[in-house]
């Protein structure tokens, strides 16, 4: 069914919280994701032209890097930005699907594609503003992040491994997984403490995933200015250094 499940208060909303302050843009999450899902229940994630000049294939997670410049202070920062399905609460990617292949689970809010039903019409990818859906030319169906539904409930794995592959792989612990429908969960508390936000809220898709903003940077520009302002009392210096100063100040 591509109608969305009835929203219940207190329902589970599984999702990710991504800390943009500490992500180093190493792509480990994206690679771990590709590796797990290629062999997981929703795989394979085939590539075309694998060994050639223009490889092409499906990834569920893509890591961008942005330059952010404050127009007033001219302060700049670089932000690494992983992008994957946000498991939105009211996403059009589900309702536009003509076959029922694209669906949102009532029990935990995960948005999935039933690859046995998908006809590959691509409409759901048009309806997703976040670029979370990629079509596999090789398989003829749409594919997307499953929040590792085949890991998180997988009883053959050790309890600490029942987390999405991207979360486990992240070397800086920039990724957190949990129930964002429960205000007391660790992830919800993290979001509350760090003012985590949703992407493009104006569209009304109500993403579940949250991003934690980078912490304020030290003001580099002032630091440089301060360094320049620093006065040295030349008379205190030995003659050799006084000569070096003269040389460098030229």
């Amino acid at each position, binding site marked *: 069914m591509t109608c969305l499940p009835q929203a219940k208060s207190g329902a589970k909303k599984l999702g990710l919280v991504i800390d943009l302050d500490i992500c180093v843009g190493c792509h480990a999450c994206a690679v771990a994701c590709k590796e797990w899902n290629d062999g997981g229940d929703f795989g394979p994630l085939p590539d075309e032209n694998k060994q050639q000049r223009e490889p*092409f294939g499906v990834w569920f997670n893509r890591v961008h890097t*942005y330059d952010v410049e*404050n127009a007033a202070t001219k302060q700049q920062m670089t932000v690494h930005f992983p992008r994957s399905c946000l498991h939105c609460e009211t996403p059009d990617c589900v*309702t536009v699907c003509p076959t029922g*292949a694209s669906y949102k689970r009532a029990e935990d809010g995960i948005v999935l594609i039933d690859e046995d039903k998908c*006809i590959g*019409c691509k409409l759901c990818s048009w309806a997703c503003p976040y*670029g979370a859906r990629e079509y596999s030319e090789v398989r003829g169906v749409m594919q997307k992040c499953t929040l590792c539904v085949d890991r998180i409930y997988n009883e053959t794995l050790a309890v600490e491994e029942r987390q999405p592959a991207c979360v486990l792989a992240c070397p800086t612990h920039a990724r957190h997984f949990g129930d964002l429908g429960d205000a007391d969960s660790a992830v919800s508390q993290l979001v509350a403490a760090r003012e985590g936000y949703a992407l493009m809220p104006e569209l009304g898709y109500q993403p579940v995933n949250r*991003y934690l903003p980078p912490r304020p940077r030290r003001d580099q520009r002032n630091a440089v200015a301060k360094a320049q302002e620093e006065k040295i009392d030349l008379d205190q210096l030995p003659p050799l250094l006084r000569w070096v100063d003269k040389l460098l100040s030229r």
Partner: protein
Amino acid sequence: MHPALSVIFFTTASGAGYGLLFLLASSCAINPASISLYEILTMLALGLLFSSAGLLSSMSHLGRPERAWRAFSQWRSSWLSREGVIASFSYLPALLLGVLMWRNDVWIAMRLCAILLAACAIATVLCTARIYSSLKTIHAWHNVYVLPAYLLFALLSGAIWNIAVRGWFSSVCSVEALIATMLLLLLSVILKLRYWRFIDTTRSASTAETATGLGRFGQVSSFERPHTEQNYLLKEMGFVLARKHAQRLRRLVLLLFAATFIVLGMLLLISTSLLSAVLATLAAITVSIGLLVERWLFFAEAKHLVTLYYDTRQR
């Protein structure tokens, strides 16, 4: 958006087909005696040919066409599913109408059938338009111009093909029909011009700053992409048409519409049957090419929000 030829052909051909079926069905419903049996059958056949060719071509766009039947299931939420259901259903009243006309004795049933067919034809085009206009992710589609444009263009191309078919059967092409069609054409041009003004002068409320949520820190621009090669998103949704080409193609559309207008105007003055049939067919062809270019532009000029994550500098 990537202008996939299968989809462009589908929407224009099926639009012409349903426009034709709508006009045929409404004239059958209003005054069945006004058209000869062979005319009706030819128009039915042509209408069904256009719409079926369109539907088949849209099937070729699917990754798994053998599962297409599944698309009938989600009519509760999906405009694409609704379109499939109504388009397939419309064969029933269309074929029935043909049979009833042939028998030529059950007028009430025939009229009911005609009304049903007319309703199906409008409803199908409406669903097609809603598939596009309901996508909040594409500013050039999510606006008030798209639905009337789809309906109007279907009616317009249907009307001109209608004149062409009638031209081959009887020399009479009523002056009223011609003038009405010319007015439709004018209206289409006005609508398209307003649409182009709209997409040129307005932009989506979403920006790279809201897409990343980093607007609070300043202006966001892409420093490094996640991948050096193309991916599905860039191929499907990152298609950008140079503005220069867009302007040129817009002029081509207007030129083709103007040519059609002139040919229709000439038909008003001509009474030789063969010549008017030839001219009417010419008009049908020029308007169809114009609509194909227009539909290509409709895709090529549409920018998807996901591009905000990639080329954030060129906004």
